[in-house]
């Protein structure tokens, strides 16, 4: 019961989709199953939020190291959620002015918009911008031409780095258009070698996905069910 039914559900859902791909009249079943998937995906966000709440509440109640930060996280989470769900400060849609709830949840001037614009955006973007610094120190300390493979990689990377700026154009300005660095990178490195490598990787991974999916559908692979209870 705890394992057989889930395996059956997985197999049937997958097979319906596969059949729908080949049999036009079955397409609408496929659409229905897909809509369910989307609704479940939304529930998964709630599961994520719930787990976060649970985890941080535990940290606070246990007074674990750094529990103050957990409190900040929960506060930020709670405020965002409440102002978002209740559409605080959101104006109604101009098409339906008499329906106060018709506005978009991220509507301009709303509280959620403010949080998104002035808290989420800078934090998210700066987190990734940090990587520029990490790359620079890694360039100095970690990227060594230890063997032939690493050598090929670093030489290619250097050529691409130079070629993708004005430096590349500057160095090869006088040459025939085909022998300009940007063109060489694009025509040879990107379109020939990189494409060949990417294609082979894609073919391999596609076969891997097919065989893994097949194992899920026939019930051989049950790792997603976790351990025995």
């Amino acid at each position, binding site marked *: 019961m705890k*394992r057989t*039914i889930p395996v059956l*559900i*997985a197999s049937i859902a*997958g097979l319906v*989709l*596969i059949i729908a791909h080949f049999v036009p009249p079955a397409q609408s079943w496929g659409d229905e199953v897909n*809509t369910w998937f989307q*609704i*479940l995906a*939304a*529930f998964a966000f*709630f599961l994520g939020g719930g787990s976060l709440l649970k985890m941080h509440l535990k940290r606070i109640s246990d007074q674990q190291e750094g529990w103050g930060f957990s409190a*900040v996280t929960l506060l*930020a989470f*709670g*405020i*965002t*959620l409440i102002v*978002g769900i209740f559409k605080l400060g959101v*104006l109604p*849609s*101009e*098409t339906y002015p008499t*329906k106060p*709830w*018709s506005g978009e*949840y991220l509507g*301009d001037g709303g509280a959620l918009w*403010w949080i998104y614009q002035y*808290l*989420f955006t*800078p*934090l998210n*973007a*700066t*987190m990734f*911008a*940090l*990587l520029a610094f990490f*790359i620079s120190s890694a360039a100095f300390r970690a990227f060594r031409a230890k063997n032939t493979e*690493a050598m090929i990689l670093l030489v*290619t990377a*250097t050529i691409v780095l130079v070629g*993708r700026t004005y430096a590349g154009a500057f160095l090869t300005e006088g040459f025939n258009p085909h022998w300009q660095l940007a063109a060489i990178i694009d025509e040879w*490195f990107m379109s*020939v*070698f*990189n494409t*060949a*490598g990417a*294609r*082979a*990787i894609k*073919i391999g*991974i596609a*076969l891997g*996905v097919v065989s893994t*999916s097949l194992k899920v559908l026939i019930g051989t692979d049950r790792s997603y*069910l976790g351990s025995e209870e």
Partner: protein
Amino acid sequence: MKPDKVIAGIMLVVGLVVLFRTSTGGMGQSYSREVTVSPASAPDVQWSKYEDAFPREQGEPGVSFSWSRTLGLWISALLTLAIFSFLLGDNVVYKLAEAIFLGVSAGYVMVAGFYDGIVGKLLAGLAPTLMRDSLLPGLPPEQQTNWLNIVPLILGMMLLWRLSPKGGWISRWPIALFIGITAGFRMLAYFEADFVGQIQNTIVPLLVFAADGSFDWVQSVKNLLMVTGVLSTLTYFFFSVEHTGVIHRVSRVGIWVLMITFGVGFGMTVMGRIALLAARLEFLFDDWLWLIDPLNRRS
């Protein structure tokens, strides 16, 4: 020489510049424009909405200094600096910014999931009349109750069961549905686009002649290298034979092709990360410090 002194020096200079420029009103201000909305469908209703305005537009009708936007601007700038402070080592300011980030991002995706998934898909199907009267007035009048939506509702509840300390196995049903659907469509999509599609893309003539009949050696070499590259790399990924002799040599070529692929990827990634940093610095210098004005917001 320790970097600490240099960094402390820079921070001091930046701090002084910020203080001076703020006191003279030369940075970090936001303006908004009041626009009156009078919807065509209800002539007796009207309200005001506020849009971003450039500082140079101050004095124009409806444009005024906006406290909420200015506060937001300063908070964004300080949070940006807080994250950058991680480069000097883990510290309280960074941890605080990170804690805020965690909470806000979890909250935001939950709101988006609620309105676009639960309301837009589940409730629009289960209670279309109620939704038309409240959250989704534009729902087509012909939309009927779709009782099949009860299935995902129940499965969704079962998924949330995972939060309870006991009976975690209940959530396996929705997870199984999730995985089964993913397996079904991924199998088709990957096989179509990444297996069949890539094979078809790789079928090219190895000898190419230009339209006038002359031999196009550049294109021929390109095609030859590409096809050899794909085949040798596939050989490298061949696991059921031992790589000795000819196969070893071919797969060695394959690995070189892969290394060039990774080299390209490496270079491109560096390019991407620097672009992101440039965008953040541009935000600090333009929007907050008013040191540059590429978009003519202030002049």
